[in-house]
């Protein structure tokens, strides 16, 4: 069987993340987002591709939402309340707590301010959230008998999670959005080393490598400080959650340190309310922030207060957080209209703005005028500061994660097409992992791992677990190394523990297939092991020794004393060691062992293994009896040729 992956959104684009994965017959929808750039039906994923008959309850086993951003959860109330999906929905506790705020905020902007027809009501959101099952990180959730899911910390925003899903022997991870480096309030993504068939990862910054963000944070603080010091007003358009809290921690901390008294405002009660959630969910933040719960909860901002509409035209400087981000409408647009014409003021923009929003227009070039609609034009004289830190991982982070998890296949989503193509190439060439970057409505099929079952004997399991140390000497110095001229190439010992799972699979009629250790097989068969060995009695030329000139070693070697024997063996050992420097030779005094090759002095007059006819100089030769097994045949022949050609003195 295979894993089928149908991309309904965020295929070669950013927005409306939605991937439907079929894994061993189980169908999971990962994220159910909306696209901020569209106002028509393209804003939602094309759900009809899941089920022609729109029988979603039977078509899907569950929905998993990774985090509360609208491009990941925006279409959920529509899907459950309008399309009628009633199956289980999983998300983390913070996501369940915060997603309704995001959805409600968005709904208000759409209906109240843009006057659009509403896609879903407040009641819909409430109903939808009732169906959600909240999960904790690392909690193993059994969706049904076969499907198990688990959430891992993803950084990015509060409660963001990567999800692991496993059906039978096939397993996959869907990352959602993640951040591999910690930020002001969140930790870095964290996941176990898992056996995966498929990894679906975001690739927002597929082509970017970022340096430390502290420099850019300082830049932001400096810009804000300069503006308020000059009596200007700072507008920070953000969504109510996530970035707002991160920047607020940053500013609140800076305000404390610099003893600034300029007020920081939140435009709506929304963000203040959101802070309430953040306080309760503080255990989902970074270690440093987490530890503040007992003394001073980091989300109890000291300098932050509520904004009143009348303050828009007040002369004094201030910092204002206003929703929505990207200045796509709502209060942030209202304030922008009033503040943009004054060059004392400052507007900050997020790192990414969807095309069609004012934020996007401000980012592209330095416009002095912006047409809001055909009647309204805004003079833009204020300063613009683009925030260049992002809660997404960069290309290095993606590569690190892929390398760490080493899945069999990778699918890239949530990115820009050309950059994704480059990253795909890198993953395939550098990591040797199949990688895909499907477009929306495309479907990718990857094979999944399957297993056959067999019984295993305990002896087999034990033998597999036995350490299998290999020692090898290596005199290889670092060849690329040019800086260590003074260093001598010292032989160093390499130790590897390469455990081998080796056994014998026995298939007997009417019995369960079983894996046994080879010793057990013989027992089963009632047979004895039959050993095949090679033997050779090898003549070695020996230079006459001064003292023993007359008493040649051969044929009177029965007179050879133990000390002589060992001295001859020693000499052979020295010889072999110098010829076979990488080999691991064991000296047992009476004999030498090299893998299965065993050599000792032959004392027999008539050794049966003394095959060779070329005993021309019998008197000058000592005989060494060698034996070895088939596995070391090559090595043995090499040693023998060394022995035959050498001259021991």
């Amino acid at each position, binding site marked *: 069987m295979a894993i089928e992956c149908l991309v309904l959104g965020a295929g070669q684009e950013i927005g409306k993340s939605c991937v439907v994965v079929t894994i061993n017959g189980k169908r999971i929808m990962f994220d159910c987002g909306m696209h901020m750039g569209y106002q028509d039906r393209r804003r939602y994923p094309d759900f009809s591709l899941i089920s022609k008959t729109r029988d979603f309850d039977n078509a899907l086993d569950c929905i998993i939402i990774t985090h509360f951003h609208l491009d990941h959860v925006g279409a959920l109330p529509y899907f459950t309340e309008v399309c009628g999906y009633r199956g289980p929905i999983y998300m983390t*506790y913070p996501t*369940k*707590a915060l997603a309704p705020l995001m959805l409600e905020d968005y709904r208000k902007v759409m209906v109240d301010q843009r006057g659009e027809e509403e896609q879903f009501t407040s009641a819909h959101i409430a109903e939808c*959230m009732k169906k959600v099952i*909240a999960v*904790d*990180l*690392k*909690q*193993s*959730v*059994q969706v049904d*008998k076969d499907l198990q899911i688990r959430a891992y910390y993803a950084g990015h925003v509060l409660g963001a999670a990567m999800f692991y899903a496993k059906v039978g*022997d096939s397993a996959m991870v869907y990352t959602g959005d993640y951040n591999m480096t910690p930020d002001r309030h969140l930790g870095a993504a964290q996941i176990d080393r898992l*056996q995966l068939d498929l990894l679906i990862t975001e690739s927002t910054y597929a082509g970017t490598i970022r340096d430390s963000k502290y420099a850019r944070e300082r830049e932001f603080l400096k810009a804000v400080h300069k503006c308020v010091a000059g009596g200007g007003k700072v507008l920070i358009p953000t969504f109510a959650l996530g970035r707002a809290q991160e920047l607020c921690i940053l500013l609140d901390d800076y305000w404390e340190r610099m003893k600034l008294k300029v007020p920081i405002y939140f435009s709506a009660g929304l963000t203040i309310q959101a802070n*309430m959630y953040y306080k*309760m*969910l503080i255990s989902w933040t970074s270690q440093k922030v987490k530890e503040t*719960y*007992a003394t001073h*909860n980091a989300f109890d901002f000291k300098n932050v207060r509520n904004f009143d509409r009348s303050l828009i035209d007040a002369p004094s400087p201030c910092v204002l957080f206003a929703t929505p981000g990207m200045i796509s409408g709502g209060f942030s647009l209202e304030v922008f209209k009033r503040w943009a014409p004054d060059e004392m003021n400052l507007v900050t923009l997020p790192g990414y703005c969807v095309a069609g929003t004012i934020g996007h227009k401000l980012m592209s070039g330095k416009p002095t005028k912006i047409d809001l609609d055909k009647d309204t034009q805004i003079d833009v004289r204020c300063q613009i500061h683009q925030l260049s830190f992002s809660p997404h991982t960069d290309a290095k982070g993606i590569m690190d994660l892929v390398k760490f998890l080493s899945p069999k296949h990778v699918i890239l989503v949530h990115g820009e097409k050309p950059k994704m193509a480059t990253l795909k190439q890198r993953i395939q060439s550098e990591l040797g992992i199949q990688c895909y970057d499907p477009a929306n409505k495309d479907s990718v099929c990857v094979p999944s*791992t399957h*297993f*056959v*079952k*067999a*019984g*295993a004997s305990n002896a087999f*399991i034990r033998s597999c*677990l036995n350490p299998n140390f290999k020692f090898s000497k290596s005199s290889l110095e670092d060849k690329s190394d040019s800086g260590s001229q003074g260093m001598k190439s010292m032989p160093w010992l390499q130790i590897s523990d390469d*455990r081998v*799972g*080796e*056994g*014998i*699979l*026995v*298939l*007997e009629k009417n019995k369960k297939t*079983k*894996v046994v250790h*080879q010793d057990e*097989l013989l027992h089963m*068969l009632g047979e*004895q*092991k*039959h*050993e*095949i*060995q*090679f*033997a*050779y009695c090898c003549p070695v030329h020996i230079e006459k020794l001064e003292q023993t000139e007359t008493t040649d070693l051969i044929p009177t070697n029965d007179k050879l004393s133990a000390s002589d024997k060992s001295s001859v063996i020693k000499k052979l050992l020295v010889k072999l060691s110098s010829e076979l420097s990488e080999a691991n030779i064991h000296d047992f005094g009476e004999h030498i062992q090299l893998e299965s090759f065993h050599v000792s002095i032959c004392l027999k007059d008539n050794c*049966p*293994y003394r*095959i*060779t006819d070329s005993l021309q100089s019998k008197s000058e030769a000592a005989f060494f009896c060698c034996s070895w097994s*088939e*596995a070391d*045949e090559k090595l043995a022949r090499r040693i023998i040729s060394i022995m035959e050609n050498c001259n021991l003195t």
Partner: protein
Amino acid sequence: MKFTCLSKGGGFHFPPCHMLNVCGFRVLFDCPLDLSALTIFSPVPADSCTIGDEESSNFAVHEPVVDMEAGVRKKQKVEKPLDANSLIYSEPWYKTVNNLHLWNASFIDVVLISSPMGMLGLPYITRIKDFSAKIYVTDAAARVGQLMMEDLVSMHMEHRQFYGTEESSVPQWMKSEELDLLPSALKKVALGKDGAELGGWMPLYSAAHVKDCMMKVQRLRYAEEACYNGTLVIKACSSGLEIGSIFDSGHAMDFDYHALQGSDLILYSDFSTLLTSEDNEQSTFSDDNNNWEELAKSLCNNDESSEEREKLSFICSCAIDSVKSGGSVLIPIDRLGVSLLLLEQISMFLKSSDLKVPIYVISSVAEELLAYTNIIPEWLCKQRQEKLFSGESLFAHVELIKEKKIHVFPAVHSPKLFLRLGPAVHLLRRWSGDPNSLLVLEDEADADIALLPFKPMSMKVLQCSFLSGIKLQKVQPLLKTLQPKLVLFPEDLRNHVRFSNINSFSVSHYFENETLHIPSLKGSPELKITTDLASQLNWRNLEQRKLNITRLKGELLIEQGKHRLLSRNEQASSSQNRPFLHWGSPHPEDLLAVLSKMGINGHVERGMRDAESDEACIVHVQDPNKALIEVRATGTVISAADENLASRIFEAVVDVLEGI
């Protein structure tokens, strides 16, 4: 498998302690302290403690009526009546699980802690030099447990200041002549029923030990699966919720449910420990009838929780009465869960009775504890979690503190410990003579001893008991839900619960400190082989035996108790296709025939005996070159100078043998 009950424990404060030997691993369940044994010590004498007076200005305190006589206790040889003077005047020691000391702590592989109470004795074993076990505790239990231990250490310091440091290693009271003088009730506590438990007494660990202990702890999230050594799967889950979802998984070995702290509404840090072993054994150990409370909650309707709620209401109304009549109410913080509920309820009662009486929470860790309970929605019950989703604080105390209705004192003192340590002692002394005041006390068997130093008392005492375990009648339905294969049940409850024979599980009864051998349920382990590996196998058919065999080589992966054989990255070299395990005995004639087919000729020389007196048979090969083959029943030796010839002979030998 082997199971040893080290201690049956004693109620909520002293959970049981067990040792289990499973899959070759030694697993310790909980490491508690018997804090109730503290009652044999006298509290700090009142008139020497001035801190209490300074503090009194903060409270609506009535004049203290009873002052304890301080000073040196007079020794008398006859057994005295049990009164305040019989208590031991000394720096308190702490009673650990005596039987645990009989085990070598360095041989423990895994420690599972099921509740904050279950970890109070942990610093004693983590400070042992060779201790190297992995300790699993849930996040919430670890935090609360740490706070309790830190609190204990700081409360103890107060005592210590009074008594000064002990000069010798064995305190005076532990000497046998002193122990003989103790009234029998106290002696029983000190020495245990059999008089053998004196060895369990230890001086308190230090704050550094606690810190060190917490460093060694592995924290688990809710329902997180931890895997020890690839084989032992440990999963912590709340004992009050979601039983079904956990037990349906089927493959798990369900194990030892400790339900601990908490009341009907609060599940935090109540969890049970679930173990899965490699062997797919299924067995459930019920170790104590007290341990099952929260599990049962989901089995039964909520009549139990309404009962508990009534108890709380009753306490509240008593408290209100007392306050109305001008008295004060002292509620020692026993169980965090109950205390939090009481805080909520009493302030509600006060509000509805239109009373403006301040509530004080006095503890060195109160502030942190109260803050902590508000940030762990994952560990709370559904109703509390709903508060998170609607944006309210998890517990009302957050708002009450903000509204200044509850005052938290990070004082040097902290809650009661069996009315011996901490600020409760001082307050009790002040209020014990006031008939309008009220002391809310958990129903304990030795309440008499506990109140001894404060007698005579005109203060009202309300004793109440909360559920701290499963009710006996809930055991059967629980087991029905769990469907274990094996149940261990305490021997002394044998007569209370009758297991019918139709049960699917077998029941064993255990005694304290007696090792029970549990039959292993495992069959042979199952191995999963990847299909790509399985498809590369070269099968060999052994016709006479109707067997197919093949050599299997791969990388064994043990994960979550499952064995998998994956194909190795470097592919097998060609030599691996040759068999290298051989059996059978070759006939020299057969061998000659095969050799001659290969163009190798020779002749057989029989019956040669050599030193090993093993019948050997020699084949001499002349053509194409000289070689010798020595054939025996258990082995063959090939001797040839020519490498090529040797390997051809080898092939011939293999051909006449069977092998793989």
